[in-house]
């Protein structure tokens, strides 16, 4: 019964290790969403750019979660690529331009507040999609 459902089956990106990935993405979708919601609702005027990026992060995590869970490889690939670029750009900006990022977002300082998981997650996601793609290509 081990490793069932891997390969070309629909939802293959959500099987096996992919299921763990979906779980972690779902947690970040919730964490980023809640955080962005509070920031936009209570102090949007303080740092609109930072908080809009925070909201973008939330949207990216939601899209990636749904795409991975339902086996939408292209959408997942796009979302995770945006996520990787986002965490690198926001991570760098939050360190070099502190004034523009007065409050923590999930991507601040490369996700330091979240054990750097936001930095590792897109890399794991892309590796997983690549492995899935190869499995599908062979099948």
């Amino acid at each position, binding site marked *: *019964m081990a490793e069932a459902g891997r390969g070309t089956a629909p939802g293959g990106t959500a099987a096996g290790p992919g299921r763990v990935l979906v779980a972690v993405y779902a947690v970040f979708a919730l964490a980023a969403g809640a955080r962005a919601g509070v920031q936009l609702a209570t102090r949007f005027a303080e740092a609109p750019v930072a908080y809009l990026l925070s909201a973008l992060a939330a949207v990216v995590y939601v899209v990636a979660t749904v795409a991975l869970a339902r086996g939408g490889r292209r959408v997942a690939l796009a979302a995770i690529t945006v996520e990787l670029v986002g965490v690198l750009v926001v991570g760098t900006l939050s360190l070099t331009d502190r004034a523009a990022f007065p409050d923590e977002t999930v991507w601040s300082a490369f996700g330091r507040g979240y054990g750097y998981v936001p930095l590792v997650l897109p890399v794991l996601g892309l590796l997983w999609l690549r492995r899935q793609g190869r499995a599908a290509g062979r099948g």
Partner: protein
Amino acid sequence: MGAMNAVLVWSATTVAALVALAGLASTAARRRIGLVHLAGAAVLEVLLLVQAVVAAVALAGGQRPPETATFVGYLAGVVLLPVAGVLWSRTEPSRWAGTVLAVASLVTLVMVWRLVQLWEAPGG
């Protein structure tokens, strides 16, 4: 710890850590999750629900952490996590079900301590 009961917090921490270890162990052993995992998650859920009631009573009694909305959000989220973890892992037919449950348990653990932090945070 105010509304966060020390006994409940430490019990939840211990149970969450044990469930996480059991989950990772089943992945390492290439096995699916079993009754032990479900029982552990159930105990964790009960502890979280009791803690949620304790906190709700404190909130209703007029005690307020500085960021009440965030605190309530975490409180609502944390009681859903073990349930979500069990549901998402039970439909996984491979050994990775244990890791899913471990992730849910570890996030629960972190959130419980975030709740303690939020409650004790200095006002302002």
